[in-house]
């Protein structure tokens, strides 16, 4: 079973340490929820795993099956099967969602198998439609320009559609629940459940319990001050829902300088 391991990770952003000694191992097929108040470094962690150039790793490692991926560029990490559903996806005017996804799928397949000739347009359409059905999306949506003029909810749904088509081994969902109304949240969550089953190791980053009503995590972690301070099962999320983060602050003290959103 493939695993993604984050080991003793320390990360600087603009010379401030945002992640300090973070440890987590996610196995393919497991769903982990990472919760915590604003500004504890959750999104920084997501970007760092994906390889954003602005984040500077001072020590620690990120490994897939024991092999470090820190020397890899973001596209190479994607080829290894890592996927990030963005909190704020950027728009690419003039490029349709369908066209973009076909290029991305072909790029990944070619990286995995240099002899890959690319998916035919017909086969790709079938694939895309089946994934859109799963997420109850209108087919016409695929011909819109990528994230251009999408509502908040449409962007999030489009992110999960991309995950569905690219079939990564590990997916980080960075606040995918924000911007979704309750129906969309249910549909997207069910989609994630179906896709993840046994195939994808998922890290769900969220402030709130509500997405976890639909996606039952195998593990819940609370991130505070740049590291995981509490880990448990689904009940931990319920406790947060009831009691908020106040008890965490009391237990682990005020945030050190430099940690903010």
């Amino acid at each position, binding site marked *: 079973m493939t695993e993604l391991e984050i080991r003793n990770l320390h990360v600087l952003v603009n010379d401030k340490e945002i992640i300090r000694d973070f440890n987590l191992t996610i196995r393919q097929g497991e769903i982990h929820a990472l919760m915590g108040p604003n500004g504890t470094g959750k999104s920084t962690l997501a970007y760092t795993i994906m390889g954003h150039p602005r984040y500077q790793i001072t020590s620690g490692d990120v490994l897939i099956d024991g092999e470090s991926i820190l020397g890899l560029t973001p596209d190479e990490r994607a080829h290894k099967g890592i996927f990030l559903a963005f909190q704020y996806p950027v728009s690419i005017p003039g490029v349709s969602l369908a066209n973009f996804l076909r*290029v991305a799928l072909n790029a990944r397949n070619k990286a995995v198998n240099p002899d890959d000739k690319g998916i035919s347009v017909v086969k790709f359409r079938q694939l895309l439609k089946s994934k859109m059905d799963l997420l109850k999306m209108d087919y016409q949506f695929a011909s819109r320009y990528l994230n251009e003029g999408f509502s908040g909810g449409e962007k999030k749904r489009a992110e999960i559609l991309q995950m569905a088509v690219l079939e990564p081994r590990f997916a980080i969902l960075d606040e995918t629940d924000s911007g979704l109304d309750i129906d969309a949240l249910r549909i997207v969550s069910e989609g994630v459940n179906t896709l993840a089953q046994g195939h994808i190791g998922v890290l769900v980053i969220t402030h709130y319990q509500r997405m976890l009503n639909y996606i039952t995590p195998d593990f819940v972690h609370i991130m505070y001050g740049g590291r995981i301070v509490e880990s448990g099962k689904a009940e931990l999320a319920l406790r947060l829902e009831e009691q908020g983060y106040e008890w965490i602050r009391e237990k682990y003290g005020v945030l050190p300088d430099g940690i903010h959103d």
Partner: protein
Amino acid sequence: MTDNHQDILQSIGSGDKYGFSYPDDSIFTSRKGLDEEVVRQISAYKEEPEWMLEFRLNAFRHFSKRPIPTWGADLSGLNLEEIIYYARPRQIDQKSWEDVPENIKNTFDRLGLPEAEQKYLAGVGAQYDSEMVYHNIQESLEKQGVIFLSIENGLKQHPDLFREHFASVVPFSDNTFAALNSAVWSGGSFVYVPKGVHVDLPLQAYFRLNMANIGQFERSLIIADEGAQVHYVEGCTAPLYRTESFHSGVIEIVVKKGARVRYTTIQNWSTNVYNLVTQRAVVEEDGTMEWVDANLGSKVTMKYPACFLKGPGAHGEVLSVAFAGPGQHQDAGAKMIHFAPNTSSKITSKSISRGNGRSSYRGLVRVASAAENSRSNVVCDALLLDHESRSDTYPTMDIKAKDVQIGHEATVSKIGEEQLFYLNSRGLSDEEATTMVVSGFIEPLVKELPMEYAVEMNKLIQIQMTGSVG
């Protein structure tokens, strides 16, 4: 498009199905440089009527007095003394395939052009002729009364129609290079579409192979009579390889009452070429003129397609994209002159610069006092792919009329780190990601192109972007 036309299209590039005929003309080439004697020789060689010789000579005298313009791109590298002003096109083409630079051959390969077509485009080797194709299409056009001839044959076969309109849109005094073209023009098309006739298929799309024969000083004249419609496509996305380094064409279009003309140019000159072109249309009442213009390649391009909106309700559009790579300056834009009431115009200009390339938008919107209730909208978008590249806009607005609506928007954008990271995170390399952003940027133009050109345009952008990210 009928099946027959499809068959013809497909047969292009399929080999030697259609034999070619190579007219056994004597070969004439003028000496370097220009004087009255050379102008007389050109006219005599073409067996022109007296009025045309007079026109050429007047144009030459005018040209001799006019300075090379300095207001635009740097033309100091242009040596007019060294140019051969007239050579039979096929004689220029007596080169060997080995002389064609590797990068040009590679581009042909990557565009997937058959070898015969590659050689034809490069102007070498066995001529690859489309006489037969030409003939079939010509027949169906003739039935509709459409005239589609080389400009030389237009002058010979339709002298009155020709003389009535020739230089009526672009007089030789228009600008220095229009004067030069008027003196030495050779090659180009003559098109007349009769009243009410709609030509369904883009003209010239089938004859793109003939592009290898366009001259340095081509001149085209298109007349759409009342209510007529035609789309003329000039160019091809394959690089036009020329050993000579100067191209100065004139395109004149007459759009009569209620007529509609679209003129699409896609040019990818080799990077030694100075491409200085005058394109103008006169648009009469309720007529519509659309210039769709893609400029890639060349060392310097100066090109400002213009519409003279002469009749009430006339409409003009320019949709252009310029791609400036290393060492290139694309100085492109548009001119819209509103003379009559209720006229409207729209300019959409997109430029991409990379590797110290420079692109400029230079535009003029003039609304005369009589042109009440007119509208004009200008949108210029520039995309810079790196820090060395440059983009400028030089918009001029001269509004004399009342009750007009004028809009102007200009944006300059860089491909952002966040855009790149987003696409990277989906498995696209920097180069693939940049290419995708660029393709999206020019999508508004590409979707206006005939299918086969759109496909090639996208491939061409990919080629242009190769090695652009380092």
